[in-house]
Structure formats: structure tokens, C-alpha cells
């Protein structure tokens, strides 16, 4: 963003001021708004006028503060031959710095414009360290920005509207606030967004803004203190404030650390704080209940314990499985799914992140790949039975994600009980072992390896076993070529299983 203001900028309505001429003549440059400053600073930078040669007068000190009175008789020490130099290119200020300058301009300090010009000057000299807190000016700039944002935040938080009676007409809500910096314009925008078409007015010692439901109007100060409006609704707020406080946790220091002292006098709830604190402290409260609530008559609910328990589906015995510790960090046990007397059983490793949430096998990315492989192999998902060797998701945390972790052989063995039950009830003729864990589970041995069985079906416990890759292996291999090969191997294995199911010999 360039510091050049477009002619006719909205905030640039003051009569044009020749900043360079004023500086040369040793006069202070009048600045009322950030727009004024921006225009003047641009001209001064272009003419290479250094900050020590410029005086500024701000809006709150229009004519000669102490400093400018003391120096107005003196010619500023402009470097000799200044105007003989060719004009410098207009400064280019990054948006982030411009926003900081704009915020800092709301900070009430007598030398605010001089300081901001020094920042612009140093930036123009290539001194990027002014962006760092470690630089002295940089630290002050950030301090100013922070103080202004803090003040805006506090005004958003601790301003209290009082409601006027409807017959009094607009504005419907009135508030009084005493900000330490010039943040009223931004804050008014905040309340315009918040209150919709409801009319309101905010008074401060320096200015007033009024929202009529459509437009913001601002004028000089109209009120001189907190709104003189009776609002019966405030009683509800004080009741809420008293009731939400937990006397057993009394810790008034933190409260005072958050709400700065100068806001307390205009906060309606401040009036009830001393009583709340002394009551809680004096009584050495052992319970969190509010005193007045504790004194009311109580009621127990006459309902029998067994009637209170919600009706839930009985957890399956699989859900209650504690044969290993995996249940602790899983959502649920994922049972197999498919045709009751399927000829083919597809056996995977364990549920993944998505399966654990949905409670169904192969619904995540690996499931999608398996679905596609089944279609390619001409296999109907509804006619097969799909399950996993291990029924609970095993994982370890990686930041906020769950990273799949291969189940240990003892977990595979612990879960074999459930696989056996499934093998008995479904009684498939063919089991397709997807991946090494499935193979180890079927053979109940931790030492077998995939490559000894790949592509050659074998008989085990009276049924065919076909071994191939797990679909997630195909998702994981880095090269596209290896991926195609893995998918092709899975499809081939499914086709083989299909042929075996149709009674062919391998």
C-alpha cells in the first residue's frame, strides 16, 4: 500500500496544508485526523525533511503546546541544501505497518504525530527493525498499538447500555464510557453491527455518537456523566452476576487483573462486588451455592433409580470386550458386516479413524479403494462379508490427529476369539486376507510373511485362503507405478476368490 492519499480521500477533507512550507518556516503542522497526517508525511518524505526539523500540532493541542511555544521563535535546523535535492520517491508502506500507524494515531500522547513521522522516516531509510519489539521506537509503536487495541476491546466489553422507556422515543439505548484513547469511531462501528436496527447513543467526555438504526452521527460531547436513565432490566443482570459467582472459588485478584480500576465506577455490577466478596470470604464458604439459593426450600425428585436410567440398546458382548486394552482409546468395537452366509469373507486389519466413528468396517479411504476393486473384480459387496482381524482401532496421537498403529500380535491373538465366532456363523468357503495382520490372524502365527503366500491360494481349516495387499498399502506406496500394481494385485485376488467361490479350482 502506498502512503499517497488519493485526492479526495474521505478522511482528507481538511483544507490542503503545505507541510513542507510550514516546516521550512518553523511552524507546527496542524493535524486533526490520520488522513491529514498521511498527506503531510508523504510531502515531507518526498522533500526529504528529517523528523527533527518538523513540529506537529495535534487536535487536542491546536495552537502551541509547551514544546512548540518554546521553539516557535527558533528556525528549525533544516539540513542545508535540502530543497536543492531531487524529490525522493513517495514512501511505500506495507499494509501491516500502515494499520499499525493508524491504530497508534488513536493513542493520546502529545507527540503522537512527531513519533509516527519518525517511524515513517526510519522505514524510508530502510530501517526495517522498527517492526521489531527489540527496537526502541518499534517497542513504543507496538506499545501504542497494543494500548489502543486494548482500549477498544475494553470498550466493547465493559460499555453498558441502559434501556430508555419506549415512550421516550429514540435512542432506545444509552451508554456512557470514558475511554483513555480516541477509539470511539471504531467502537461505534462495532455496536452498529451488533445492535441491528435498534437505535442507541454512546457518550464520552470528548464526543458522542448516535446510531438511528441506519446511520452513525457524531458530534461533540452531549452528556457529562453516566446515563441518567432508570433501567429496571438491570436488576436481572445483577441477579445473574451474583448467581453465576461460585463463592467456593473466591479469587478476586484475577477479577481485578482483568477489569482495570477506572472502569469500575461505570459498571453496574461493581456495586455488588464488595458484598459478594465479604460474604464469601467471611463465611469461609465450603460450597459453591449462593447463600440466598441455599436458604430456599428444596425438592428432591421422587423417581426410582431404575426408571431414571435411559433406555439404551444393550451393548453387544463385543462392545464389552476387555480382552486387551485397545477399547480404552477407541470409540466402539467394529463388528463385521455383510451377508449372513457369504461364501467369501474379506478380512482386513483393524478399523481406522472413520470406521471407529461410524462403527462399520471399510468406510474410509481404504474402504473406497476396496469398493472400487470389488467393482473391477465383478464382486457384489452385498454378497460378501467384510470384517477385520482386530475390532478396536489402535492409534497414537499426532497433534490433534490419530495415527494408525499396527496391532501387536498379542492384540491380534486376543481378538481372534471374535474372528472365530464370525468364521463359525458365516462359514465362508474363502477368506481373502488383506494384508499381513489378517494373514497372521488366520494362521495364528506372528512369524508368517506375506510374500510366502502372495498369489497362491492355500487350504487352511477346510477353507481357501487368498492373500493380497491391504487397500491402505495401495494408498500409501509413494510411486504411481507401485500403486497400480498393488491395486491390480488386489483385484486379481478378488477375482480369484470369486472363481473359487464359483467352484473352480485355482
Amino acid at each position, binding site marked *: 500500500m502506498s502512503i499517497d492519499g488519493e485526492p479526495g480521500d474521505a478522511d482528507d477533507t481538511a483544507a490542503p496544508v503545505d507541510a513542507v512550507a510550514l516546516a521550512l518556516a518553523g511552524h507546527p503542522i496542524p493535524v486533526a485526523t490520520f488522513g491529514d497526517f498521511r498527506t503531510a508525511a508523504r510531502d515531507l518524505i518526498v522533500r526529504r525533511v528529517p523528523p527533527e526539523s518538523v513540529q506537529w500540532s495535534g487536535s487536542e493541542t491546536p495552537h502551541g503546546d509547551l514544546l512548540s511555544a518554546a521553539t516557535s521563535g527558533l528556525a528549525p535546523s533544516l539540513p542545508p541544501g535540502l530543497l536543492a535535492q531531487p524529490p525522493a520517491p513517495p514512501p511505500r508502506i506495507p499494509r501491516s505497518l500502515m494499520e499499525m500507524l493508524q491504530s497508534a494515531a488513536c493513542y493520546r500522547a502529545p507527540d503522537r504525530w512527531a513519533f509516527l513521522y519518525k517511524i515513517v522516516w526510519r522505514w524510508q531509510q530502510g530501517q526495517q527493525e522498527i517492526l521489531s519489539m527489540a527496537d526502541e521506537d518499534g517497542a513504543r509503536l507496538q506499545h501504542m498499538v497494543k494500548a489502543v487495541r486494548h482500549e477498544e476491546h475494553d470498550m466493547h466489553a465493559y460499555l453498558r447500555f441502559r434501556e430508555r422507556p419506549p415512550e421516550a422515543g429514540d435512542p432506545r*439505548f444509552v451508554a456512557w464510557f470514558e475511554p483513555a484513547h480516541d477509539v470511539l469511531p471504531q467502537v461505534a462501528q462495532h455496536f452498529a453491527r*451488533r445492535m*441491528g436496527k435498534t437505535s442507541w447513543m454512546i457518550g464520552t467526555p470528548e464526543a458522542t455518537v448516535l446510531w438511528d438504526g441506519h446511520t452513525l452521527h457524531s458530534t461533540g460531547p452531549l452528556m457529562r456523566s453516566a446515563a441518567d436513565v432508570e433501567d429496571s432490566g438491570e436488576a436481572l443482570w445483577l441477579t445473574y452476576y451474583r448467581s453465576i459467582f461460585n463463592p467456593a472459588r473466591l479469587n478476586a485478584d484475577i477479577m481485578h487483573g482483568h477489569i482495570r480500576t477506572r472502569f469500575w465506577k461505570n459498571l453496574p455490577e461493581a456495586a455488588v462486588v464488595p458484598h459478594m466478596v465479604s460474604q464469601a470470604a467471611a463465611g469461609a464458604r465450603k460450597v459453591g451455592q449462593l447463600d440466598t439459593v441455599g436458604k430456599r426450600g428444596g425438592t428432591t*425428585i421422587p423417581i426410582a433409580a431404575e426408571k431414571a436410567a435411559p433406555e439404551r440398546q444393550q451393548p453387544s458382548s463385543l462392545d464389552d470386550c476387555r480382552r486387551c486394552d485397545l477399547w480404552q482409546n477407541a470409540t466402539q468395537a467394529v463388528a463385521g458386516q455383510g451377508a449372513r452366509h457369504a461364501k467369501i469373507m474379506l478380512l482386513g486389519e483393524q478399523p481406522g479413524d472413520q470406521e471407529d466413528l*461410524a462403527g462399520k468396517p471399510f468406510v474410509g479411504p481404504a474402504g473406497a479403494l476396496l469398493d472400487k476393486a470389488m467393482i473391477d473384480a465383478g464382486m457384489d459387496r452385498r454378497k460378501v462379508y467384510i470384517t477385520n482381524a482386530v475390532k478396536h482401532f489402535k492409534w497414537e*496421537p499426532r497433534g490433534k490427529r490419530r495415527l494408525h498403529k499396527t496391532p501387536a500380535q498379542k492384540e491380534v491373538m486376543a481378538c481372534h476369539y471374535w474372528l472365530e465366532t464370525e468364521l463359525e456363523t458365516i462359514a465362508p468357503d474363502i477368506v481373502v486376507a488383506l494384508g499381513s495382520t489378517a494373514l497372521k490372524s488366520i494362521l495364528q502365527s506372528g512369524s508368517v510373511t506375506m510374500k510366502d503366500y502372495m498369489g497362491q491360494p492355500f487350504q487352511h481349516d477346510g477353507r481357501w485362503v487368498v492373500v493380497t495387499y491391504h487397500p491402505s498399502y495401495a494408498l500409501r506406496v509413494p510411486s504411481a507405478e507401485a500403486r497400480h500394481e498393488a491395486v491390480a494385485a488386489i483385484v486379481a485376488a478378488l477375482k480369484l476368490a470369486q472363481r473359487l467361490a464359483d467352484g473352480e479350482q485355482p
Partner: protein
Amino acid sequence: MELIDKLEILADAAKYDASCASSGAPKRSSEGKDGIGATNGMGICHSYTPDGRCVSLLKILLTNFCIYDCQYCVNRRTSNVPRARFTVEEVVKLTVDFYLRNYIDGLFLSSGIIQSADYTMEQLVAIARELREVHQFRGYIHLKTIPDADPALIDAAGRYADRLSVNIELPTQDSVQRLAPEKNVHTIKLAMGNIRLKLDEKEAEPKAPKFAPAGQSTQMIVGADASDDQRILTTAETLYGSYKLKRVYYSAFSPIPQSPKSVPLAPPPMLREHRLYQADFLLRGYGFQVNELLPQSGNLALDIDPKLAWALANREHFPMDLNRAEPAMITRIPGIGLRNAKRIVELRRMRQVRYADLARLKCSMKKIAPFIVTADYRPPRDTTPSEALRRSMADVQQQMPLWPELQAA
């Protein structure tokens, strides 16, 4: 009963919920529109009560009638407390009135279980619907989800609410079974999983109807059972990973009137809750894992914060040269937060980082001095044993108990 009496009872009953956050909602504005309310994503605390907690939302129960008998809860059915129930219109009116006066940023609504989980959830949803559809309310809404309720109701709740939460209540299944007999960890996890699936679906399909844009959170009560901090943080880590929670809130058990024998008479030290929040922050923001902060079972140290404890236990990483260290490792130095770590990395691109720079960044010099090396500084005592450092750096110089047996009793 007058509205003000109900408010007194039902706010008092809701104070045990730790969450009062109003951040994370998408930006909304009512400028030039019917209705009221705005959110800017940040959330604001509108006041603080003398317990040091902020007031950001109107936090109330719809009713404190409850058929459940959770031992740690003041509203359990066997508890002899005054009972009250708001109507839907009363909650809506309170929310709008409080909002217009700038007391709150929105509503946090929870409820005792009345009639059934579904009935209770329907009532909560009805209030949110009324606020959003009839009053065009654009402020923040957080609904406490009843875990056993029909998923269709939770779906509806997510359309109106910015945040949903399901309380895990206690860190272990055994404790839930013992202290909250009508609740069930399995259904609580299923409800959280269901919400996460809906959040994932919405993320995958941006045009789908909105669903709890500020995500889900949960709360765990600390000190009502015997679980140690390692158990609590491991459970939190599991919940973060599994259900993508925005926050886990830890609520130090607050003794309740006519406390049942099954829960302790005394609250845990408030500092324990604070240390858990600090540790939680390290898990979420700094890439720490529970087994780094607490390698063995036990509690976090009370005298020093968890990051300092980690640094003292892992002195081999220190002193760390700020001009060379990996950015992620700089965040692990006690006394340097995420923001200052970023500033240090930015500064060292321009020039060497010096000791005085850190003071200007407002680092706690006492805390970081033994752990850093800069262009002009090396800690004079970098071989000082961790135990000695710890004694000099502990927050509270605690007097040793004179008769520990007596104090424990």
C-alpha cells in the same frame, strides 16, 4: 415464580460448567438487518466475577429438575435444592435483553434431564430455533448436548448452535459408572463421534447446511474421583485426537450442599486445575505429548509450571542457542511463548539476537536465563543441577508441612 427468582436458581445451578468461551463462530453482522447480534470470531468477556471467571455468555440451565443422580452434581435427583424451570420464551427474552444491554455475547444453555433425553434435547433445540429464526439472533449460541438423544436432534442442534458440547464428566469409565450411574461413557463417545462425523461431512461439502461452526468441546471434573493428572491428560489427548474437540475444560470439583459420601468433602487445590489448563495448552499449541509432560503416572507439579518442569527434566536440550535453534524448539524454552518465539525468529533474520532484546520482548528473564544462549550471553550456571534451579524458580516458596500426617487427615 418470578423470572428473577428462576434466574437466580438456574444461573446458580449452571455455574459449575467451566466453559464460557464465545470464540470461533463465523463472522456475522446485523448492520442494516432485522434482528440483532454479531460475531467477529474472537469472542469477548463482558465481565468477571470475584471467583476470577469471566462472563461472556448467559450461562443458565433450562431447568434444574433432573432424573439423573450424578453424585458430583448439585442438581442430582436426590439433592434437596430449590427447583425451577424456564419456559422457552423466558430464555429467549433474557438472552435478547441481556444482549442489547451489552452484558453478554450470547447464550450457553444446558439442562437437567427431564422426562427423557430426547424430550430435554428437543426443548434446548426449540430455544435455539426460536432465537435464530424468529428473533434473527446472530450472537453466539452454545448448546450442551444430551448424549443419549436421537442423532436427528443433535443434527438440528448443530444447525442453530455455534458450538455443541458433550461432557465426558470424569476421566475413566469406572468413575463414570460409579459417580454418574445413569450416564455411560460408550454413549458419550458415540455422541462425540457422531458430532465429529457431521463436522467432517460439512468440511468436505462446504455448501451443505451449516453445522456447529465453532466445533465441539467437553468438560471433565477434576478431583471428584481418584484419577491423577496423567490419566486426565491422557483422556484429554484421546478426546482431542478422536473427536477433534476445540477445547477440553477442566473443572475442579466444587463441594456441593449436602454432599453425598461418594465424593470428597474438600475441593482439590485450585492450582491443580490451573496446571492442567497450562498442560492442555502445551498439548494443543506447542506439540507436546502427555508422555513428555508426565512420563509416569502422577500429578503435575504445583510449584512450577509444566513447561519449566519439562525443561528441568530434559536439561540435555539446554542451554539453547536462540540464533540457531529450530523454531519449534524455541517454543519449548520456559518463559517463551508462541508469539515471542515467532518474534525471535523474525528478529534473527535481520540480525543476531542479543540478551537485551529478550527483555524488550518482555520475556520473563528470571525464567529463561538458565536455558538460553544469545550472541552476547551464556548462562553462568548452566551446569547447576535441575533440583537447585527448581528451588530458585518455584512460584511459591512453600513451607514444609510441620505435621504432614495431621494435614492429610
